[in-house]
């Protein structure tokens, strides 16, 4: 039983880590109906920039601040150069543009800072806490707390302000949004900037777990099943989806894995999400598809 | 020609249709019948449930209660393509053309049901498949000619102005050679001249192919002039039914729909 609980808790906490990355996707999907392929690259770019600045002797907070500024700038430039020419174009074209952005960011990051992996110490001791025989990671707890703060802040921001509404309007219909005076460009720039900030947070936390290296771009893969399960447009969905995926994938690996030879963690969440979608095609909290004639 | 004589027995009967979405009752115990060869108009205020009615008839919506009988076959629920296979075609209120295809291809899709060759034969484009394509192309050209859209044959439909898109949609529906044609506001967004053209097409289809037509329209001039009978819906209920003249004089219709101006 204790083992079960341990796996469960470990899974839930890992799930939160997935959610952190998923959040970035959600933001951009909400605002443009587009899946941002570059999210993983942004996580990598942000973390690498930050850690490189630290290694160049910057104070931790100073480095974080500078990276934050860089990510905001990146968001603004992305809007200007990548998104603006693609207003009102099919989502798949926008999607492709984010792929171009991915190559660009990956190249830029390594051009600026090199390809070496780095360790990152964010000041949280990662010795496990033992609660009644169950080990709980401090770093993961810290990450969970950060995620909670982030989600609350973003949730409030997007549901309480008119910007949140405008965001959804833009995702529905670029042209109509423009016609009522929603400044598409500002909205997009803002959302991309926020997504950049989220990427930085995710990058730092993941970086503390696995080191800062190119593989941070792969964190995006872990976020995908979370997204489909939670729904592409929902911030809450990203968190709930993360928890569910994290917990079930770990439990499945431990309890089902041995029967089929193990290593099922990569596809199991997808199959799970897929089965779930058959029941609810828009995910847990996603927006319903509107099909009317 | 006396049109009344041509009108035959009921070909479509809807009985006690109830349809609701969450709290909204889109249709509430609606019954009526459509007779062979006639042009039946459905009118009513916005949100009355007219489009929903058409959706029920061709299987896009499944009513919670009630039944639809078409050509003697009674049914409760079916998939739209089954309805199409039985000979029901339609056009849509918010144009539902295939945006990525040319006018010609759009209309050709209408003949989908009539195509018999397998995809393997089509991949070779030899013999039967080729002959079939050409044969159907001929049919489609007749329709194109009929609706006078020859000049835009190869244009992608997305580029067409609204009115022409409506016409292409009609062409696509006609290509299926349906028994029953459902038209959802075919003349919206047209000027008088274009409406006249459209009316002419509708009447011709009715006359020459004997197609039964159910049509939703807000232009009372059109409704009065071309329909044989009219059904009036309001808030999901049928409030009147009869010849155009009867309906126009009906107090409930004036109250709910026409307003005093008419």
């Amino acid at each position, binding site marked *: 039983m204790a083992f079960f609980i341990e796996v469960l808790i470990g899974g839930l906490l890992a799930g939160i880590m997935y959610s952190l990355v998923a959040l970035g996707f959600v933001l951009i999907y909400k605002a443009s109906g587009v899946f941002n392929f570059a999210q993983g690259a942004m996580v990598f770019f942000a973390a690498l920039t930050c850690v490189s600045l630290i290694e160049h002797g910057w104070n931790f907070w100073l480095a974080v601040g500078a990276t934050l500024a860089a990510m905001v700038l990146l968001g603004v430039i992305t809007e200007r150069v990548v998104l603006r020419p693609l207003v009102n174009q099919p989502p798949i074209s926008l999607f492709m543009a984010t792929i171009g952005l991915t190559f660009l960011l990956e190249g830029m990051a390594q051009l600026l800072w090199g390809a070496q*992996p780095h360790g990152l110490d964010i000041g949280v001791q990662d010795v496990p806490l033992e609660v009644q025989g169950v080990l709980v990671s401090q770093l993961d707890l810290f990450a969970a707390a950060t995620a909670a703060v982030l989600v609350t802040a973003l949730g409030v921001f997007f549901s309480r302000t008119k910007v949140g509404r405008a965001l959804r309007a833009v995702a529905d219909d670029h042209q109509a949004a423009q016609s009522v005076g929603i400044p598409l460009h500002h909205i997009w720039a803002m959302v991309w900037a926020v997504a950049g900030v989220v990427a930085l947070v995710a990058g730092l936390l993941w970086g503390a777990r696995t080191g*800062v290296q190119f593989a941070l771009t792969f964190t995006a893969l872990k976020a995908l099943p979370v997204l489909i399960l939670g729904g592409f447009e929902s911030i809450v969905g990203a968190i709930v989806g993360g928890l569910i995926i994290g917990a079930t994938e770990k439990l499945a690996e431990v309890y089902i894995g041995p029967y089929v030879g193990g290593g099922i963690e990569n596809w199991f969440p997808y199959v799970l999400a897929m089965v779930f979608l058959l029941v609810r095609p828009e995910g847990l909290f996603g927006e319903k598809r509107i099909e009317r004639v | 020609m006396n049109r009344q004589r041509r009108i035959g027995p009921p070909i479509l009967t809807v009985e006690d249709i109830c349809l609701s979405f969450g709290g909204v009752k889109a249709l509430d115990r609606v019954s009526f019948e459509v007779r062979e060869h006639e042009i039946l108009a459905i009118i009513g205020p916005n949100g009355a449930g007219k489009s929903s009615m058409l959706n029920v008839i061709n299987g896009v919506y499944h009513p919670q209660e009630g039944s639809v009988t078409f050509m003697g076959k009674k049914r409760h629920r079916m998939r739209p393509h089954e309805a199409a296979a039985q000979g029901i075609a339609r056009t849509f209120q918010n144009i539902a053309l295939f945006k990525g295809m040319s006018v010609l291809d759009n209309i050709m899709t209408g003949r989908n049901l009539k195509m018999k060759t397998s995809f393997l034969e089509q991949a070779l484009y030899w013999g039967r498949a080729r002959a079939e394509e050409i044969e159907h192309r001929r049919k489609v050209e007749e329709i194109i000619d009929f609706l006078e859209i020859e000049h835009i044959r190869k244009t992608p439909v997305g580029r067409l102005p609204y009115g022409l898109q409506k016409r292409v949609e009609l062409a696509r529906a006609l290509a299926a050679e349906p028994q029953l044609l459902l038209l959802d506001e075919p003349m919206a967004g047209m000027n008088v001249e274009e409406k006249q053209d459209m009316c002419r097409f509708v009447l011709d289809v009715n006359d020459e192919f004997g197609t039964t037509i159910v049509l939703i329209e807000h232009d009372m001039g059109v409704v009065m002039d071309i329909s044989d009978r009219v059904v009036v819906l309001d808030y999901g209920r049928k409030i009147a039914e009869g010849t155009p003249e009867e309906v126009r004089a009906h107090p409930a219709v004036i109250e709910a729909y026409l307003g005093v101006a008419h």
Partner: protein
Amino acid sequence: AEQFIPMLSYRVGPYAPGGSGFFGGYIDYLDMINKRDGGVNGVKLTWEECETEYKNDRGVECYERLKGKGPTGGTVFTPLSTGITYSLIERATTDKIPVISMGYGRTDASDGRIFPYIFPLVTNYWSQNTAKIKFIGMREGGMDKLKGKKIVNLYHGSAYGKETIPVLDLQAKKYGFEVKHIEVPHPGNEQQSQWLEIRRYKPDWVILRGWGVMNPTALKTAQKVGFPADRIVGVWWSGAEEDVIPAGDAAKGFISAAFHPSGRDFPVIQDILKYVYGSGSRGNMTDQSRIGQQYYNRGVIQGILTVEAIRTAQEKFGKGKSLTPEQVRWGIENLNIDEKRIRQLGAFGLLQPLKVSCFDHEGGGAVKFQQWDGERWKVISDWIASDQSIVRPMIEESAAKYAKEKGIKPREGISLGSDCGHYSENLKKIVSGG
């Protein structure tokens, strides 16, 4: 005269740290030879890099692009990627160009009678694995102490990761220990469930057959579940500085196999620093602090082997001449680097003695073990020889199977200028499909 050496390198993407370190060392060594000795017997070494991004298809493209360059074509290919190596096996054989895959690539190519052009020099995965069990046995106080011990094989969920499962199973049977194979799905940046399972299983040792981000993550997660790092033994793709630095403190005490140590105290590295980086000139490494690290030193070894092969070939085919790849192949197959030569090369302790033959394309097979102290790798064992009594039959059988599939007639007697001995009846049966 010049000798052209193609470089299928990769300097972007997830594998860039390995690529830049290895090719940095390789190129610096060649550069040093040019600068210090004026080339090999006066033959200048030249090279060109081609970016493969660690992808097989790009690798093939680069191979095709570079194989015809230089006066005599690409001398020897070293793709530093198992996948690319596999893709080159047939091509290189047809083109008569040797491929050296040192510590990676196709293990059974150690049987040179069937793979005349492929050289998994120094040591291969299976050899390494037997040495590792020997090492664990030593730590436990003798091979007989292995009985009843529990070992977890934590492997990367890929073909590479799976490759040592059969050897381990064989050894488990032989020595009476228990082995549990646990897979980590690619890329391995999340290992919570695997390590919880390890914790439950309570093994005595964990063999870490990792790759890239899987390595630091494993060490971090081990720390999280309280498994001691000095009971984890990595393979050499888990044992570079790049694999432990990201794990921070969690890596302290971690042990890994290596076929060469880190460090820059070897004369040969000093020579590189002097001739290549000295007097303000620029070497291949942007970050000079990486000189002497695992990947760099591996590159230097590659350089030594390449140059020695050319030298050996020149002895036979004429000093001071540009050699064809075919001739260099002969040089590789007849490499004999003994301790004396190693000392001359300034690589004592860095490189193990090596004798390549038609029969044995591996040539060495010994492994050293090193431990991370938080700052650098410290060598904690001497060369530990592999257990060829286990490895060799497996290799021969696997190679024979390949020969059968491909319809290759194994080399026998004197072939391509080397003595290949005789092919055993047993293997003949496999090749002919018995």
